[in-house]
């Protein structure tokens, strides 16, 4: 049996991770721009809160990135084993999200959060295999 993973499969996993991270960052950025969802719902009702989210361009791009990531996952699964693609992409997404949160969203990612991201990434990898 040949267990080597071709570069094209890693490229597909990379595409899933990049699009999932972009989606998460855009959604987080959109929600930060909109403000506390509970406060908006208290003032404008659930309809007003939903309208505020749906009108946000970052939110729409975030959902688009999530959709592209999902279809990239489906495409990758038709080429490679689910036991490789699913855990590898899920685990790497935790790490790339920590980097994106630090450098793009300017969140205060301290040592505690780095450690948590690495632990959870490794844990998801083991759990999903």
């Amino acid at each position: 049996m040949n267990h080597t993973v071709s570069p094209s499969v890693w490229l597909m996993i990379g595409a899933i991770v990049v699009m999932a991270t972009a989606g998460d960052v855009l959604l987080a950025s959109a929600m930060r721009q909109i403000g506390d969802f509970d406060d908006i719902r208290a003032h404008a009702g659930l309809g007003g809160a939903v309208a505020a989210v749906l009108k946000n361009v970052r939110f729409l791009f975030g959902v688009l990135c999530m959709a592209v990531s999902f279809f990239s996952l489906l495409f990758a699964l038709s080429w490679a084993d689910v036991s490789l693609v699913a855990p590898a992409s899920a685990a790497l997404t935790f790490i790339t999200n920590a980097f994106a949160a630090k450098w793009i969203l300017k969140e205060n990612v301290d040592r505690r959060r780095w450690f948590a991201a690495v632990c959870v990434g490794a844990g998801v990898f083991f759990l999903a295999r």
Partner: protein
Amino acid sequence: MQSTMTFRRYMVLVAVMLGASLGDTCLGIGMKHMGPVSIHHLSSLLLALRIPSVLIGILLLIGFFASYLTALSWADLSFVLPATSFGNVVVALLAKFWLHEHVSPARWAGILLITVGVGFVTQGPSYTDHSQIDSTDEEATVPAMASNVKEQSV
């Protein structure tokens, strides 16, 4: 960073972790019941909407997404993602004790690592207040600029 977590907000995080995991599980059960779908007959996917567990799965995933967005409006992405990853552990434990599936040593190691990660991140602050950071930066910048001007004038 500040901690703005209340009991209600912890419940939103629980909804995120359970919504995603249980939603995926319900979809999985439903799609197994339906059988394989050919790429040439994608319209047959609409028939999946007749399966109760698929509908429950979709409702749970809608609930997950609403809770996820709510959580991101008052907590950092680097806090929400690790904190809600505990749902993977819940599914593994359900598989072990409810469905009586075999959980390998590697999976137990995964459960341990996720539990440690979640324990670490939830002990810390949940939100980065950018207005405070900006004002701190300004305070740090102004004395530095003042000392530069003093040096130049000297």
